[in-house]
Each structure stands twice: as C-alpha cells, then as structure tokens.
C-alpha cells in the first residue's frame, strides 16, 4: 500500500517558485562578467552578494517543496497563477539588491520600483545619475526588461522545468496564452528563439548605426544591445539620462521605432509570419486595430501641436510627435523630448492623446502592456455586432467572426471577458489618477502618469521622482505589476493567500475553543 502523502499546495508552489528564482538569479552571472570585464570591482561584489542570497533563497524554496518531486502531486490552475505572481514579487526583492548596493537609488523601495518597472517593461525609473552608472548595473537593468518582456516564467520553463504537467498553467499565469507548439515548453522555446534572432539582427543594425553617428565601437555595441533590449521588450530604459535624445540621430530613432513596433506584436503573429503566412499581418484584428488607432492618434497629435505652434516643421513633427505617440502606443516609453515638455508644451489635448494610446497599448501575448489591441478590436466588433443585431430581423441568425491567427466566432463570452479586463485597467488607472490628485498634482499630469504605469509604458510627465510620496510609489509598483500580469494571477494569489489565512485562523480558533 502506498502510504506516501501528496504534496500540499504550499509545497507545490514553493517548489516551482524556487526554480524560477534560481533561474533568474543565475542570470546575474552575465552582469557580473561584464563588471569583471570592465574592472568594476564594487559592482562585481554587489552581484556576487545578490547571486548568493538569491541562490540560497531559491534552493531553500525548492527543497521546501521537495515532496512535490517525490509524490508527483496534482498541479492545478491556482498553483500556476500563484507561482507566476509570487515569483514576480520575490524576484522584485532579490533583483533589487544590486541596485541598492550600487547607491544609485536612495532607498530599497526605490530599487524595487525600478526592478518592477524593468520586469513589467514599463521604463519609469527612480535611479539617479545614470550617466555615471557602471556597465555591470546597466547590463542588469536592460537584461531585466528584456527577460521581463518575454516572461521570466517562460524563461524558467524553457531551461529548468523538465515535466510539462503544470507548465502551461504557469505560462498562462504570466499573462501569455498563445500556443505556438503542441507543448508549452516548445512554445516557450519558440518565443525565446524569435527574440534571440531579432536580438542579433536588431543589435547589429543599431551597432552599425551607432558607429555611423560617431560612437566608439565598444560603447556603440553596448548602447546597441541596451537600446535593442529596451525597444524589443517595449521597455523604455536607456543607459543615459537623456534617454533616446542622447544620440541626436533620426536614423537611430527610426531603427528603434521599427524594433519597438515589431516587439509590440503578438508572438503568434511573429510565428505565423515565420511560417510563411505573410497575409496574417494584414488580416489580424490586432494589427488592424493598432494601425487604425496609431495613425489616428499621430494625426490628431500632429494637428494639435502644429495648431499651438509647438512643432512647425515636418521633421520635428516626426521626431518629437510621431516618435512619442508610437512609443506610448506600443508601451515602449522612449522619450524624444524632456518629461516636463509634455506638461509645459503639449497642452491638455496632446496629453489626452497620449493617455488614450498608453491605455490601449500593444498586442496580447507580446512584450507590450495596456488593454491590448485584441481586446479593443473584440469589444469594438462586439459593439458593431450588437448594433447590427438590433437593426436586423430576429430571424436573421448571422454568425460574427474575427481573425486572430485563425478565425474565431465572436461570442458574447469573448466580448464580455475582454470588456472585464478593460474595465479592470480603467479602475486601476482611475485610482492612480485619483491618488495623484490627492497629493496635489494637476489632473492631466496625474492621468498621464497613471496611464503610463497602468499601461506599462514608462513615459513620465515629471511626477515619478525619488521625492514623490511613498504611497504613490507603492501604488505605481502595484499598478505596473497588475497591468503586466493582467490581473488574474494576482487575484488568484490574493484569493489563495486570503483563503489560506482564513483557514489558518479558523483552525486556531477551533483549537483554542476545544481547549
């Protein structure tokens, strides 16, 4: 008779969370090598300390959940969601250690803010004096945003988790649901393959461009790598304070635009294109939605800013308006103007356009944030469907469809679930705006910053600084986190933890009553 007990939920979650943490911690070896290469000894020590702490923590979690390995217990949806959500929270602490030790952030909270901003590919930052930052830490910042874009759980699944039983549940928990291959490990591998091919091409293009605009070969390479990682992940970090303005180059900005637009597309679309299905880019509901909204937003912003005389010539319009609108729409967050220029020069109309595109965001199952073009397209088609139903005869039973990699029937449940997620984003954005106004920031400024963190964009109007209220920092961290994981995982984790606490309380109460 088999008397071996099954692993409980805590052990299962602990086991897989440990794997994810161990995997991401080991990645710190790369910035450590960069630090050694550039003979930056203090940053090298920072990374050694962080690797040690993270490795001990990861191994301890794996060992705590060893019962899972022994008994092959069931892996349920709640476990998958909780592993994804919990890994992000724990990694936010662990990955912030090199930041804090470097002295570029005034507090641990600020360090965690920057890490969450990197993971969620947001790009707002509280780190100070980027211009004197070590190469090692710069490598780490940009790696975080690159890994976060593809998904940390996705990475761990590719390299560490052998069994694929619960893999799909963790994969979905990280806000990704596209199935490129029959198994999730294959899909995760495919996502990384796509990203790595683009990494080589994109870094190469930016490197050549960097050399042409006068950068030295070695720094041109590192700048190219960092800007690619940020663009592809729609992150928005850059190695220098001036962000993309540091390069003073229309060609550099143009290459970045191409990369971040491609990066904001669904991995399913990339895969379809790779498979030779070139028409997908035109037929897909997400790309249709993106091109319509981005074109409209660019035209409106150009018209508005030309009317107010802020930018009068075409080149300025392209580099300062189109660039920023596309950067906001793809949720990248590269800024080709100073943060305060939005507030001081763009006016309410310009700010409103930016808020709208930041909230819409890029494609589902991509590196981008926001509502996602798929949901906007589905809800829009849903509205049209309802209007048509009202106008047509009750006998007329027409089936409405939309195309996203393949044809789907537009069912009420699909429209409803899309609308619910959009509603969640709007609530998150509204609370953020309200909080900003509570602390005395103007409404339009608060809305801009709230939209930027909710949509994981990273553009700032000047609110995000180390001196901002602590509560706002915490809320922005939460907004970036919820926005990136698309609510469900976090809700599942909160529900699971809440349920656990309730059970524990009931148990304690019962035992105390019986005594």
């Amino acid at each position, binding site marked *: 008779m088999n008397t071996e007990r099954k692993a409980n939920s805590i052990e299962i979650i602990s086991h897989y969370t440990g794997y994810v943490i161990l995997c991401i911690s080991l990645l710190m070896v790369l910035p450590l090598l960069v630090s050694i290469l*550039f003979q930056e000894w203090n940053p090298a020590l920072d990374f050694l300390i962080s690797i040690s702490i993270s*490795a001990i923590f990861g191994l301890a979690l794996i060992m705590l959940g060893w019962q899972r390995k022994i008994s092959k217990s069931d892996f349920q949806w709640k476990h998958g969601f909780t592993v994804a959500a919990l890994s992000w929270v724990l990694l936010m602490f662990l990955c912030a250690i090199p930041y804090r030790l470097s002295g570029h952030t005034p507090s641990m909270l600020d360090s965690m803010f920057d890490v969450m901003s990197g993971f969620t590919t947001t790009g707002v930052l509280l780190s100070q004096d980027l211009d*004197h930052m070590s*190469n090692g830490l710069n490598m780490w910042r940009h790696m975080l945003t690159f890994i976060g874009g593809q998904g940390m759980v996705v990475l761990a699944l590719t390299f560490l988790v052998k069994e694929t039983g619960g893999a799909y549940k963790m994969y979905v928990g990280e806000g990704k649901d596209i199935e490129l291959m029959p198994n999730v490990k294959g899909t995760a591998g495919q996502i990384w393959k796509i990203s790595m091919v683009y990494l080589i091409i994109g870094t190469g293009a930016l490197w050549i461009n960097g050399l042409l605009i006068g950068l030295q070969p070695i720094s041109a390479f590192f700048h190219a790598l960092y800007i690619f990682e940020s663009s592809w992940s729609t992150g928005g970090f850059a190695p*220098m304070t001036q962000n993309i303005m540091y390069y003073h180059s229309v060609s550099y900005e143009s290459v970045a635009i191409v990369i971040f637009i491609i990066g904001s597309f669904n991995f399913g679309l990339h895969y379809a294109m790779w498979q030779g299905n070139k028409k997908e880019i035109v037929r897909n509901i997400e790309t249709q939605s993106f091109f319509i909204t981005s074109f409209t937003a660019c035209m409106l912003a150009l018209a508005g800013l030309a009317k107010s005389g802020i930018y009068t010539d075409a080149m300025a319009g392209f580099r300062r308006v189109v660039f920023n609108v596309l950067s906001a729409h793809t949720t990248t967050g590269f800024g080709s103007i100073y943060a305060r220029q939005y507030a001081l020069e763009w006016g309410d109309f310009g700010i409103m356009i930016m808020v709208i595109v930041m909230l819409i965001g890029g494609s589902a199952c991509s590196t981008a944030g926001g509502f996602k073009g798929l949901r906007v397209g589905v809800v829009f088609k849903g509205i049209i469907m309802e209007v048509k139903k009202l106008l047509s005869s009750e006998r007329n039973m027409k089936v409405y469809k939309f195309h996203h990699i393949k044809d789907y029937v537009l069912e009420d449940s699909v429209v409803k679930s899309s609308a619910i997620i959009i509603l969640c984003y709007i609530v998150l954005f509204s609370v953020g705006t309200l909080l900003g106004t509570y602390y005395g920031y103007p409404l339009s400024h608060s809305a801009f910053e709230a939209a930027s963190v909710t949509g994981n964009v990273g553009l700032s109007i000047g609110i995000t600084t180390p001196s901002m209220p602590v509560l706002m920092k915490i809320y922005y961290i939460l907004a970036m986190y919820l926005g990136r994981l698309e609510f469900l995982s976090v809700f599942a984790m909160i529900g699971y933890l809440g349920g656990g606490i309730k059970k524990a309380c009931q148990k304690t109460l019962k035992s105390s009553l019986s005594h």
Partner: protein
Amino acid sequence: MSKNIKIFFVTLIIAGLVPLHVAFATSTKINDLIEKAMAFDGQTVTITAEAIGEKMDRKDGTWVNVTDVSNAIGIWMPTQESRRISIFGNYKEKGDILEITGVFNRACKEHGGESDLHLISMRVMKSGEIVQNKISMTKLIITIVLLGTTLLFILFFINQSKYLKMKETKKNGKANGQRTLS
C-alpha cells in the same frame, strides 16, 4: 538738472533691461532651461556642466552631452572645439567641467525639433579626473561569507538530491518487483 534727470531715467531704463541679459550671462541650470523653455528660446545662455558619455562627430559638427545634475542636454559645437574636452564622465571618471555659452533652442529647426544648445564659446573650468572606487572591505567580507554559505548550501542540496533519487529508485524497484511477483 534736467540733464541729470535724463541720465537718471536712461540709467533706470537700461538697468531695467540689463538684468535680463545679466541673468543669462550668469550660469543657468539646465532644468531651468527646460522649465522656462519658451522664455529662453533663442536666447544666449551660459551653463556650467560636466561632459558625459562621449562626443559624437558628425559631418558638420560634433554633439557633446553635458549634465549639471539637474538635467542633461546636447551641445552642438564645431568639431575643433570638442577636441579641447579631454575626459567625458562615466562610472570610472568625472568628466571635464565646462562653462558653455550658447544659443538655447526649445525646438531646434536644424536638429529635428530637439531642445539643444548651439555653442558660442566654451571654457574648460576643471579637468576631469579618475574617480577612486576603492573596494569596500565590508562588502568583500560579506561576499566571502555569503559565497561560503552558498557553497555549503549547494553541497547539501546535491546530497539531498542524490538521497531522494536513491529512495525513488528503490521505491520504483520495489514496485516493479511486486508487479513481477503478481
């Protein structure tokens, strides 16, 4: 008397006008240029800032980025001038401190609407220097202790892993044996 009054009024008018230019002649913070970009647009300003990153030579000039902690900005200057800067700030070095006088453009027509400064004159106020990043002994000791602990932990982990594998093999062997017997 009337001459004196005239002189007085002329002096007053000049005094009223001059402060604006005097203010511009004294060092302005880069962040102030951005905050009051409309007012400073097209004006000659002087800033004191550190050269950072590296210079970027172009066909008809050179870009040099500078920071004064409050913010950073690009300076467009003749390539010849940029050669006077010997050190650009980075992790290991503090860049040359420059006093730059130039024309501020809120949205430069020549450079695609960028906010920049077109150099008129530049003075190297202080040469850059190597920043002494001494290895922190506290960090070093913590690192050694933590690395030792991690190593021990890894050994314990490997040991436990082997033990579990052995247990699993035994269990599977037993199960297979039972199946064969039955």
